[in-house]
């Protein structure tokens, strides 16, 4: 696609195709359809309508179609016979519409552009104006040329060796591989800060007071629950440790009361004045 052979809209997909031979428009197949070669679009060969559809859909837009027409007839992109190209272009548009192809609006816009250029070129030039007038085709020719550059560049990129096609990277096994996924980290100071923020937010929005028991009580609550998990039916007195002194006993007792209040434990006394037992809420 780098050479001067006419770019073929069918070259890179859908239909295996060879480049249309513009010098002898008779024999070179431009496409294979169900194993049968399809030669030039016009002429007398019968083209199955669905194959034609494939061909027409292959155009990437009005510029692509125009380029195809220009190259197929060996015309100079810098000196386009507008009248001729316009007629051909309109014929293709009619064809696409006849096949009810999803015709992009840009195709119709281009038709209007071509018609306008054609009419401007037919106007007689004012003899008085000596300075050369701007060629009405200039903008279109610039766009066509620009588009053709990138169309060729795309073909160049498509031809580069690439992964999955020509380039196969080496991947050898590594049996000793260990996936070490570090656990997320949490900072200790963040914990306290975040808790206070939660409390402040809760006060602000929920309008209920958050009482803060001393942490030792809460810790003891967990301890008691742990004891009850091991021995589900524990004597009340066994939950106290005399060695902890008075403060320890108070903390333990507050913890038990709090557990009771939160329905986490039950206190059982089977007979009046009998021993009191504590068990985890069943």
């Amino acid at each position, binding site marked *: 696609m780098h050479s001067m052979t006419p770019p073929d809209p069918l070259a890179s997909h859908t239909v295996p195709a060879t480049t249309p031979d513009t010098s002898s428009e008779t024999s070179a197949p431009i496409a294979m359809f169900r194993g049968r070669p399809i030669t030039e679009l016009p002429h007398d060969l019968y083209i199955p309508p669905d194959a034609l559809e494939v061909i027409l859909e292959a155009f990437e837009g009005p510029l692509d179609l125009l380029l195809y027409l220009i190259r197929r007839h060996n015309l100079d992109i810098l000196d386009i016979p507008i009248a001729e190209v316009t007629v051909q272009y309109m014929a293709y548009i009619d064809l696409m519409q006849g096949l009810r192809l999803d015709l992009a609006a840009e195709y119709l816009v281009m038709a209007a552009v071509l018609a306008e250029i054609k009419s401007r070129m037919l106007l007689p030039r004012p003899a008085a104006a000596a300075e050369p007038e701007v060629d009405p085709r200039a903008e279109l020719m610039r766009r066509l040329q620009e588009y053709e550059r990138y169309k060729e560049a795309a073909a160049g990129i498509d031809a580069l060796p690439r992964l999955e096609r020509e380039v196969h990277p080496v991947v050898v096994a590594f049996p000793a591989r260990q996936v070490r996924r*570090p656990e997320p980290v949490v900072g200790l100071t963040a914990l306290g800060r975040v808790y206070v923020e939660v*409390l402040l937010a809760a006060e602000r929005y929920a309008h209920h007071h958050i009482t803060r028991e001393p942490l030792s009580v809460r*810790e003891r609550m967990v301890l008691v629950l742990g004891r009850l998990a091991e021995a589900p039916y524990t004597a009340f007195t066994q939950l106290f440790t005399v060695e902890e002194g008075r403060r320890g006993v108070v903390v333990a007792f507050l913890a038990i009361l709090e557990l009771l209040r939160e329905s986490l434990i039950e206190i059982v006394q089977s007979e009046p004045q009998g021993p009191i037992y504590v068990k985890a809420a069943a």
Partner: protein
Amino acid sequence: MSPEEIKPPEEIKPIVEAALMVAGEPLSVDRLAALFGEDDGIRQEVEQTLAALREDYAGRGIELKEVAQGFRFQARTDFAPWLNRLWEEKPPRYSRALVETLAIIAYRQPVTRGDIEDLRGVALSTGMLKTLLEREWIRVVGHREVPGRPAVYATTPKFLDYFNLKTLSELPPLPEMRPIEAPEEVAPSEPAAAQGEMEICEVVGQVAEG
């Protein structure tokens, strides 16, 4: 150049080598031979090539190994300490919601899911407690005797270990919020302690009766 064209042994070696390197899985002799067409003699050539490659790579960073499904190149296991560094990740961060949940459990334990939700004002997403349970930072220590019998969560010794604490009381003290109630002033003054004790005795009495 069509694949069918070449056959001589001095030609298949680099292709066999490349195939083993890019396949991403072990290749059997049959599969390697199939790369070169249907020729009967090719299996033997492939086998000779494999032997030659094994020698070529002696002392290099990778070696040719035969495993159940065929042959593969693999990195030498004694390089593992260096090679594993290729995939070392930065430790991820927990979401704000998760840290809040952990903080609430740490400072207010034992708590239910409902307690946490009340405090944060939003529902806990399902994975949150699961993540903390899997990390073994929290555990279920009981169930509250209310409808639904919700699980009650507390922190674990592993949580303390992670934060290098001996007991929960070593958690950073909370900065004073504005005083909520008057009785905050339970200073270690003896009379107050005595008072507390009194109250408790009363309560014990009530409990015993109840």
